[in-house]
C-alpha cells in the first residue's frame, strides 16, 4: 500500500507544501497567464485529488501524528490525521479538485497580475484550510485559521474597485477576527491553567462544568462567526457575491465547513463531557438560523446572495443535527447522539458538494451572460443546456428530494428527532419534535426557493432577447461541474457506505457507534437504528421510479399513438406573449414576503403613474444591521468621542495629568 512507503500524513504535508509552492509559482508567472491557467491550476487540482485520497484512506486508519520543528519554542507544530480530519480532507480535496479544474476555464478573461495574485491567494487558501484540518495544537490551529481568513479576504476583494466589495471584505475579515479571538480564548479556558496547548494536553485538562460551559460558549461563538450562524451571518451574503465564483464555491463548500469541524473537534474531542444544555443552545440557534436563512434566500434576486443565504440555512440544519446529537449525548443516550452526529457530518459533506456545484453554475452563468440578477435571466436552458443540467442536479439535491444526497442526510436528521421519546425530561421530549417541524418547513421552503431559481433562470422565455453571444460552459468548467453533480448522485444512492465510514469517525472521537442493525445492514438498505423503526433504500427507489417512467412511456406509446405537433403557446386572448408577462423573481417571492412579513425590512419602489416603461421593484434588508450592528458601532463612536476629550491640546493640562498621576500613585503607595 502507498503508506507503507509514506505515511498518509506525510503525503498530506507534502501535498500542502506543494500547494504553497504552486502559490508562489503562480505569483512568479505574473507575465504568463497562460501557464497559470494551463499548468498551475491543473496541478493544484491534481494535489487536491491526492488530498482527497489521503483523507479517504484516513477514514479507516488509526490516527497518525507528526511534529514539525516549527512554531513556538516550547510548542512546535503538531499535526494529526485522524478519521474526523479525514472526512473533511476528503471533502476539501473532492470539492477543490472540481473548483480548480473549473477555474482553468473561468479565470480565462483575467489579466496577468490579477490572475497571478488569484493563483497565489487561491492555493494559499487551499493549503491553509488543509492545515486547519491537520492542526493538532492550539497555536498551529490558530495560525492556519488566520491564514485561511486572510487568504480568503484577499480573494473576496479581488474586484476591489467596487466599493461594495471592499465593505464586504472588511465585514468579512472583522467577523473572522472577532471569531478568532473568541476561539483563542476558548482554548485558553480549556487548557485550564497549566499552559499546555497541544490538543492532547487540552483533552487531558480537567475542567469544572462552569468553565467548560464558558469554553463551549466561546468556541460556539467563534466558530459560529465563521460558519455564518445567526446573528453573525451578515458577512456571508456580502462576501459571496463579491468573491469570484470559484472562490465563493470554496468558501461555501469547504471553508464554512471547517468551522463545523472546529465545533466538533472542540466540543466532542477536546471538551469531551457534553452537557445537554449546550445541545439546546445549538439546537435553538440552528433552528433559527435555518429558518431565517431560507426565508431570506427566498426573497433575494442576486443569485449568489441567494446561494449565500441558503448556505446560512444549511449551516442551520447542520447545527440542528449537532444540537440533537449533543442533547442525546448529554442525556446519556450515546448511540442516538451518534446518529445525530453522523447525520450532521453527512449533511456537511452533502452541502459542501451541492453548494459548490450551485456556485460554480452561478459562476458559469455570470461569466457567459454577465448576469447575477435573477430578474433579468430567463430561458437560459436553451443556450446553456449543460449548465442547466448540472444546476438541476444541484437544485434537486439541495431541495432534499429523493433519491439525491440532500434527502438522505435530512432523512437521517428527521430520524434523529424521532428518537425524542428516549429522552427523560418532558420538556425536551416535546421541544425536539418542534425542531423537526421547523426542519420540515425549512425543507419545503428550500424546494420553493430553488424552484424559483431554476424556473426563473433557465425556463420560460428570455427576459431580454437582445442579449446575444451567451454560450454554454467551457470544457474545463463542464468537467468541474460534472464531477460534483456525479458525486451528488453517488452520495445520494449509496448512503450506507457513507454511514459506515462516518461511524468510524464517531467511534474514534466519542467511543460510541451505531447499533448493530445499522452497522450490519447491507449496502441496499439504509437503517439508522433498527429495521423495524425505519429504513430507506434510494437505489430501489431510484430504480422503481425510472422503470415506472419507462413503463408508462412504453405503454402509452404502445397502446396509443405518439403523434406530436408544435404550435404557439396559448396567449390567453392577449395580442402577444411578451417575456415581461412571466413571473419575475420578485413576484415569486411575493407570497413569502407577505406571510413572513415581520421577519423582513422590505421597501417597495412603485413606478410613477406616467412612467412609460414602469418597473416595480422591492428591496429586502436584513434587520440585524439596524437592530444590532449599527447600534454597536454607534456605541463605540460614542465612547471614543468621550475619550477624545482627554486629548485637548493644552500642554498645561497634559502636565497636570502627569502631576496628578504622580501624586495619586504616591498616595496609593503610602
Amino acid at each position: 500500500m502507498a503508506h507503507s512507503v509514506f505515511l498518509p500524513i506525510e503525503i498530506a504535508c507534502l501535498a500542502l507544501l506543494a500547494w504553497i509552492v504552486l502559490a508562489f509559482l503562480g505569483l512568479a508567472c505574473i507575465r504568463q497567464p497562460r501557464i497559470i491557467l494551463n499548468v498551475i491550476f491543473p496541478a493544484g487540482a491534481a494535489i487536491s485529488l491526492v488530498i482527497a485520497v489521503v483523507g479517504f484512506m484516513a477514514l479507516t486508519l488509526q490516527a497518525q501524528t507528526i511534529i514539525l520543528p516549527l512554531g513556538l519554542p516550547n510548542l512546535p507544530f503538531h499535526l494529526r490525521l485522524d478519521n474526523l480530519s479525514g472526512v473533511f480532507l476528503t471533502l476539501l480535496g473532492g470539492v477543490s479538485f472540481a473548483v480548480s479544474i473549473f477555474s482553468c476555464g473561468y479565470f480565462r478573461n483575467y489579466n496577468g497580475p490579477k490572475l497571478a495574485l488569484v493563483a497565489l491567494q487561491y492555493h494559499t487558501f487551499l493549503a491553509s484550510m488543509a492545515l486547519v484540518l491537520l492542526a493538532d495544537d492550539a497555536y498551529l490551529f490558530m495560525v492556519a485559521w488566520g491564514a485561511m481568513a486572510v487568504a480568503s479576504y484577499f480573494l473576496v476583494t479581488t474586484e476591489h474597485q467596487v466599493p461594495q466589495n471592499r465593505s464586504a471584505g472588511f465585514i468579512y475579515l472583522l467577523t473572522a477576527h472577532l471569531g478568532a479571538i473568541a476561539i483563542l480564548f476558548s482554548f485558553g479556558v480549556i487548557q485550564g491553567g497549566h499552559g499546555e496547548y497541544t490538543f492532547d494536553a487540552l483533552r487531558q485538562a480537567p475542567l469544572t462544568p462552569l468553565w467548560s460551559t464558558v469554553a463551549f460558549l466561546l468556541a460556539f461563538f467563534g466558530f459560529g462567526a465563521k460558519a455564518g450562524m445567526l446573528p453573525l451571518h451578515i458577512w456571508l451574503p456580502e462576501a459571496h457575491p463579491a468573491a469570484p465564483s470559484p472562490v465563493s464555491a470554496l468558501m461555501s463548500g469547504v471553508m464554512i465547513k471547517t468551522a463545523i469541524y472546529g465545533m466538533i473537534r472542540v466540543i466532542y474531542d477536546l471538551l469531551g463531557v457534553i452537557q445537554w444544555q449546550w445541545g439546546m443552545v445549538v439546537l435553538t440557534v440552528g433552528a433559527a438560523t435555518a429558518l431565517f436563512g431560507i426565508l431570506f434566500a427566498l426573497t433575494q434576486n442576486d443569485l449568489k446572495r441567494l446561494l449565500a443565504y441558503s448556505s446560512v440555512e444549511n449551516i442551520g440544519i447542520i447545527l440542528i443535527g449537532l444540537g440533537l446529537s449533543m442533547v442525546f449525548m448529554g442525556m446519556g443516550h450515546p448511540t442516538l447522539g451518534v446518529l445525530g452526529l453522523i447525520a450532521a457530518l453527512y449533511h456537511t459533506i452533502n452541502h459542501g458538494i451541492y453548494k459548490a456545484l450551485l456556485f460554480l453554475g452561478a459562476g458559469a452563468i455570470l461569466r457567459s451572460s454577465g448576469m447575477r440578477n435573477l430578474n433579468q435571466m430567463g430561458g437560459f436552458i436553451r443556450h446553456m443546456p449543460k449548465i442547466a443540467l448540472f444546476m438541476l442536479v444541484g437544485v434537486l439535491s439541495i431541495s432534499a428530494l429523493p433519491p439525491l444526497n440532500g434527502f438522505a442526510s435530512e432523512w437521517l436528521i428527521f430520524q434523529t428527532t424521532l428518537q425524542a421519546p428516549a429522552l427523560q425530561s418532558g420538556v425536551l421530549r416535546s421541544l425536539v419534535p418542534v425542531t423537526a417541524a421547523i426542519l420540515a418547513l425549512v425543507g419545503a421552503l428550500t424546494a420553493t426557493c430553488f424552484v424559483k431559481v431554476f424556473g426563473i433562470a433557465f425556463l420560460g422565455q428570455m427576459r431580454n432577447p437582445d442579449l446575444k453571444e451567451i454560450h454554454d460552459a467551457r470544457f474545463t468548467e463542464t468537467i468541474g461541474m460534472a464531477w460534483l453533480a456525479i458525486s451528488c448522485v453517488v452520495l445520494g444512492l449509496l448512503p450506507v457506505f457513507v454511514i459506515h465510514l462516518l461511524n468510524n469517525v464517531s467511534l474514534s472521537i466519542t467511543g460510541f457507534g451505531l447499533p448493530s442493525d445499522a452497522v450490519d445492514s447491507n449496502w441496499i438498505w439504509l437503517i439508522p437504528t433498527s429495521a423495524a423503526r425505519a429504513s430507506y433504500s434510494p437505489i430501489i427507489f431510484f430504480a422503481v421510479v425510472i422503470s415506472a417512467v419507462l413503463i408508462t412511456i412504453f405503454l402509452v406509446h404502445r397502446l396509443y399513438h405518439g403523434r406530436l405537433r408544435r404550435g404557439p403557446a396559448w396567449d390567453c386572448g392577449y395580442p402577444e406573449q411578451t417575456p415581461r408577462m412571466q413571473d419575475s423573481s420578485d413576484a415569486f417571492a411575493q407570497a413569502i414576503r407577505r406571510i413572513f412579513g415581520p421577519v423582513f425590512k422590505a421597501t417597495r419602489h412603485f413606478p410613477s403613474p406616467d412612467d412609460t416603461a414602469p418597473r416595480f421593484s422591492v428591496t429586502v434588508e436584513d434587520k440585524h444591521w439596524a437592530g444590532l450592528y449599527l447600534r454597536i458601532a454607534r456605541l463605540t463612536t460614542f465612547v471614543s468621542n468621550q475619550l477624545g476629550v482627554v486629548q485637548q491640546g493644552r500642554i498645561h493640562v497634559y502636565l497636570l495629568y502627569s502631576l496628578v498621576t504622580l501624586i495619586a500613585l504616591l498616595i496609593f503607595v503610602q
Partner: protein
Amino acid sequence: MEIFWILAIPLTGGALLAVLGNRDWAPEFGLFLSACTLVAAGFLTAHVVSEGPFTAFNEQFFVDSFNIFLVALTALVAFTTSLFSRPYMRIERDHGKVGVKALRLYHSMFQLFTFTMLLALLSNNMGILWVAMEAATLTTVLLVSLYRTPASLEAAWKYFILCGVGIAQALFGTILLYFAAEKILGSGGTALLWTHLNAVKPQLEPTVLSLAFIFLLVGYGTKVGLVPLHNWLPDAHAEGPTPVSAVLSGLLLNVALYAVVRAKVLVDGALHTHLAGYLMMGFGLLSVTVAAFLLSRQKDIKRMFAYSSIEHMGLITFAFGMGGAVASFAGLLHMTVHSLTKSAIFFAAGHAAQITGTQIMDNIRGLIRQSPAVGWGLMLGTIAILGIPPFGVFASEFLILTAAMHQTPWAIPFLLISLGVAFAAIFSKVQSMVFGETTAPRLSHSPALVPVFVHLLLVLLLGIYIPPYLAEWFHQAAQWIG
C-alpha cells in the same frame, strides 16, 4: 571591545555628519555608518552567544541576554531606517519641505540618536541610563520640528517639555535608588551599577524603592507613552519626518520600557510584593483600552499608527507586569515584532503620504494601483500589526492572551474589546487607502521598500519559526525578569 566600536561609530559619525552632513553623499555615508554599527552589533551578539553575559570597562557596561537582542534590534532598525530615509529625504527635499541645513541636522542627529539608544541599552549605570534617555529626547526633539511648520513646532515643544518633566521624575527616582543602594554598597560609583544593585536587591529598603519605582515608572513611562502620560506621542509621530516616527516607535519606546523593566526587577527583588507588577498591568490595560478607542477617530495616518504604538506598548507593559516565564517571554517577543512591524508600517505610510501629498487618510486612495509595493507593504504591515496569523505579532499576542487567561482573567474582557475595536478602526481605514482607484502621480525617486519587506519577512518568520538561540535569550531574560 565590540562595545567600544558599537558606541564609537555612531558618536563619531554623528560628529562628522554635523560638519559634512550637507554633502550629496551624506545619506550614503550615514547608511555606511549604520551598516558598520550593525556589523559591530553582530559581532557583539556573536560574542555574547559564545561567552554569555559579561561586563566591560570596569563594569560601566554590561551585556546580557535581555539587552543584547535589543541592541541587535536597535542596530538593525537603525540600519533599515537609514536605508529607507535615503530616498525618502531626497524626495522631501525635491518637494521643498526641507533644506540642506535641515538635512545635515537630520543626518547627524540620527546617528547621535542611535548612539544614545545603544548607550542606554549597554550602560550598566542607572545614572548613565538616565543621561542617555534624556539625551535621546534632546537629539530627536529638533528632528520632530524639522519641517518648521507651526504644527511640527508645537509637537516638538510638547514632546520636549512633557518628556523633560517626565525624565526629571525619573531622575528623582534614580536618586532615591542611589539613596537606598548607598546604604548597602557605600557611596561612590559602584552604587548605581545595575549588576551590583541586582546582587543586593533583597536588602534594599522597600519603602524607598517603592517610592523610587513610582518616580521611575512615571518618568520613563512618559517616554513609553503610557496613558495618561502619552499625550506627546501622537503629535510627535504625526508631525515629524517619517524616519523619525519610525525610530521613535521602533526604538525609543522599547528602550524606555527596557529601563522600566530593569527598575521593576530591582523593586520586585526588594519588595517581595507584586506592587510593581500591578502598577504596570494597570497602566498597560489603561493604555490598551484608551488607545484602542481613540484609534477609531483618527484622520491622520501617522497619528493613527502612533496610537496603535501606544496600544501595543500598553500590551507589552501589561505582559511584563503580569510576569511569569510565559508572559515575559511574550513581552520580549512582542517588543521585537512590534518595533519591526511598526517601523515597516511607517516606511510604507511615509511613502503613501509622499505619493498622495497628504497624511489625511480620507484623501489617500488606491495605493495598490499607483504603487503596488507601497500598497501591499501597508496592507500586509497592517494585517501583521493587527495580530492576524501567521505574522509574529500574533505569536506574542497568543502567548500574552493565553497567559492572561489563567493569571488575570479579569483583564480578558478589556483586551477582547480593545483588540476588536482596534481591528475595526485600523483596518477599515487602511483598506480604503490601499484599495480603490487613484490619480496620484509617480515619485521622483523610486521608494526604498526593501526595508518594509525585510521587516515583514522577519515578522512572518518569527510567526512560524523562532530561532533556538533567540528563544534561548528570551527564556533567560524572561527568567530573571520573573
